[in-house]
């Protein structure tokens, strides 16, 4: 199914009053460029498109809603209308869907209406067409609406935007939600079981853990929400600080070298910590006494020929007609055998004891004593090395800061502050999601002492199992756990299969976009997109390569899902040099069915001429405010009224020549 945007209309909002259409001859165009000078409202329009597609406006507060009010008109109301066309030749589907947002700036509210069925007309509320139910949510829309640092976020290590997009587009995030529903349902069933005092107490303890789990999930959600704007300002500040650093070429390359050294030392420290931790867990490291006791235990077990014969052996014999000595069994001797078989250990217990004996055999205190100090000595050395290299990075940064202007120093300080806040929140998030710890110990203490969600979940599971045994609902509990395991297995397996498939599809698209012989491909899709070539990893590509990777991934995802949305991109080629713009422009119409790019005049060089589709399949729209400062643009507008739409506060021109010749007067003056 193809989903296209046929156009939008806006009135009374902080973006100009406009009517934009991407239709030609009644059909949506494949390539659509909307040229808008800075400050005309590109971001606002993109935000409104996202809001119309996801109903996110229903969560906006009055302040946020009033921020959309036109500063010049100060009208009491505003409106945004987005029109989609759904087309599926297999289903003979050709449908128009309209989302209308009516702003009331007096009450600070926004009401949505939808035209979903032309025979019914406009209906109150956001009525998502059934065909799109699974896709019109913020996470899916983020896949095809590119704004800010979306490109980098897909590729950057430590971000999970790529995996999250796949999970949301293929319903896997919903599968995760089913786990919660299953747990909620199970708890309400358990509470319905009649209980005595002891059971009620157990249920009370379990309820406390369940409530604590909810609280931790809320905290986690809170961290994630706080991280969104923080990551965004971090990305923005990082880019600006990087621009400052670009002016200090020698210092910058020195810093990069120091940072690479520091990162390597950090990796080695982490690996050294793991080795030392593993060593601590070895009981032979603890003391000579434990070593002696264990050796003595092994000796005694051998002396007593333990663990001996298993109970199962006697049970099996008792099922035969005769004993191994040839004597025929009567019922009395069979009963005797069965009764006494319980005095022997089971197969499982025997395996455990034999395992312990074998482990004792394989270790000796003297041998490990010699090795004991080594991991800790190495850890101390690695720690010292890391501190040294980290300190060198800090000093280099201080040096570069000192060489900056006071304004730049403010920016650098702000970047450091935001970096600290971001890392702090990320560490907290990491901690709350950590699963290290012993649930047998944690489960006995107060629930508030356990602040790791995976552990709390395990404790809840263990307590549910205990309670199920008391309540005689073990079968229900086991069925529930089996259902959860099935969902988890299915979800994980689907995700891995999709990642492999999307990696191959994206690479095949990428090959057609990048110049022949470019040594870059997607090595694998993990939480992020891992770039590299011939098995060697690469952190990021060039600006143009990153954009190509992001478009290849997004369009592959859309194609694979069977529902192809348009790619809507804010500043599609800003980061690209002219040759890269040309390369991308030539391939754009072949990688997606509809491209809508919001650009400024400086992005046209190299890009616009390379698009080169037949004019019937492209729209070149210039949109600017009707203000005295734009009179020189107004004077140049073509006389043909068919090509110009004039509203109270803006002009929309669809003439290709006007589009090509449109240059911001400020940049002309500065030249």
């Amino acid at each position, binding site marked *: 199914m193809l989903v296209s945007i046929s156009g939008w209309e806006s009135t009374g909002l902080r973006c100009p009053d406009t009517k934009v259409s991407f239709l030609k001859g009644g059909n949506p165009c494949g390539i659509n460029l909307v040229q808008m000078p800075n400050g005309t409202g590109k971001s606002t329009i993109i935000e409104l498109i996202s809001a119309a597609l996801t109903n996110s406006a229903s969560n906006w507060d009055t302040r946020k809603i009033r921020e959309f009010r036109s500063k010049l008109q100060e009208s009491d109301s505003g409106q945004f209308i987005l029109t989609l066309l759904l087309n599926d030749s297999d*289903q*003979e*589907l*050709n*449908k128009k869907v309209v989302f209308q947002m009516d702003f009331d700036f007096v009450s600070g509210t926004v009401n949505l209406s939808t035209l979903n*069925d032309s*025979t019914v007309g406009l209906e109150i509320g956001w009525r998502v067409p*059934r*065909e799109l*139910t*699974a896709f019109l949510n913020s996470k899916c829309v983020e896949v095809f609406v590119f704004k800010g640092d979306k490109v980098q976020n897909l590729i950057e290590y430590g971000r999970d935007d790529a995996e999250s997009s796949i999970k949301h587009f*293929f*319903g*896997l995030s*919903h*599968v995760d*939600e*089913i786990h919660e*529903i*299953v747990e909620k*349902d199970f708890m*309400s*069933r358990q509470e319905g079981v009649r209980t005595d005092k002891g059971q009620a107490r157990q249920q009370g303890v379990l309820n406390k853990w369940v409530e604590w789990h909810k609280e931790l999930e809320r905290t986690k959600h809170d961290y994630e929400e706080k991280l969104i704007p923080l990551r965004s300002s971090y990305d923005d500040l990082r880019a600006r600080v990087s621009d400052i650093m670009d002016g200090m070429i020698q210092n910058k390359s020195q810093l990069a070298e120091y940072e690479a050294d520091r990162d390597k030392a950090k990796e080695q420290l982490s690996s050294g910590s793991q080795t030392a931790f593993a060593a601590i867990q070895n009981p032979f490291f603890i003391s000579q006494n434990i070593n002696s006791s264990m050796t003595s235990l092994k000796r005694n077990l051998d002396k007593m020929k333990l663990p001996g014969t298993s109970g199962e052996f006697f049970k099996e014999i008792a099922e035969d007609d005769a004993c191994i000595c040839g004597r025929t069994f009567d019922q009395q001797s069979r009963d005797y055998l069965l009764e006494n078989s319980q005095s022997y250990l089971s197969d499982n217990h025997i395996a455990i004891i034999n395992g312990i004996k074998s482990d004792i055999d394989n270790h000796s205190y003297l041998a490990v004593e010699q090795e004991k100090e080594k991991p800790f000595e190495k850890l101390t050395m690695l720690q010292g090395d890391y501190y040294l290299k980290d300190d060198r990075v800090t000093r280099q940064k201080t040096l570069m800061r000192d060489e900056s202007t006071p304004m730049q120093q403010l920016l650098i300080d702000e970047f450091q502050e935001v970096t600290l806040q971001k890392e702090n929140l990320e560490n907290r998030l990491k901690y709350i999601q950590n699963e290290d710890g012993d649930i047998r110990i944690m489960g006995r203490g107060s629930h508030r002492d356990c602040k790791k969600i995976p552990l709390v979940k395990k404790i809840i599971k263990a307590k549910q199992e205990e309670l199920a045994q008391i309540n005689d609902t073990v*079968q*229900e509990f*086991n*069925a*529930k756990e*089996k*259902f959860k*395991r*099935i*969902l988890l*297995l*299915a*979800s994980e*397996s*689907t995700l891995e*299969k*999709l990642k492999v*498939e999307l990696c191959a599809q994206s690479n095949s698209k990428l090959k057609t976009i990048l110049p022949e012989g470019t040594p870059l491909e997607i090595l694998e899709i993990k939480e992020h997109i891992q770039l590299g070539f011939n098995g060697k990893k690469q952190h990021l590509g060039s600006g143009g390569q990153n954009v190509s990777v992001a478009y290849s991934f997004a369009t592959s995802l859309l194609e694979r*899902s*069977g*529902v192809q949305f348009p790619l809507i991109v804010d500043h599609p080629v800003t980061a690209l040099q002219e040759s890269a713009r040309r390369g991308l422009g030539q391939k754009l119409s072949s990688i997606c069915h509809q491209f809508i790019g919001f650009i400024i005049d400086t992005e046209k060089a190299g890009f616009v001429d390379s698009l080169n589709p037949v004019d019937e399949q492209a729209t070149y729209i210039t949109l600017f405010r009707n203000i005295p400062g734009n009179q020189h643009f107004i004077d140049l507008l073509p006389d043909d009224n068919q090509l110009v739409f004039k509203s109270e506060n803006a002009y929309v021109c669809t003439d290709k020549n006007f589009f090509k010749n449109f240059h911001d007067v400020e940049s002309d003056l500065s030249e």
Partner: protein
Amino acid sequence: MVEGNFSSKENYIGEFMKLDKTLSESIQEACAQEGAPQASPAIIRLVERYISNELPDSERSSALQSIYNLLKE
């Protein structure tokens, strides 16, 4: 005319599953792995209904119960 193609709930779900074949196959595989192949149609149906927002709260418990019954077999 347009609605005719999507008027039936079954049709819509069928359409959706065509999009999400990997997930339904993985559910079948997971059920087989857990020794409960008989439960896979019901689980697929529940996931379909939930994803397409067609599983009302009031029907969740009974839908889960029928899956548990199959898993207990």
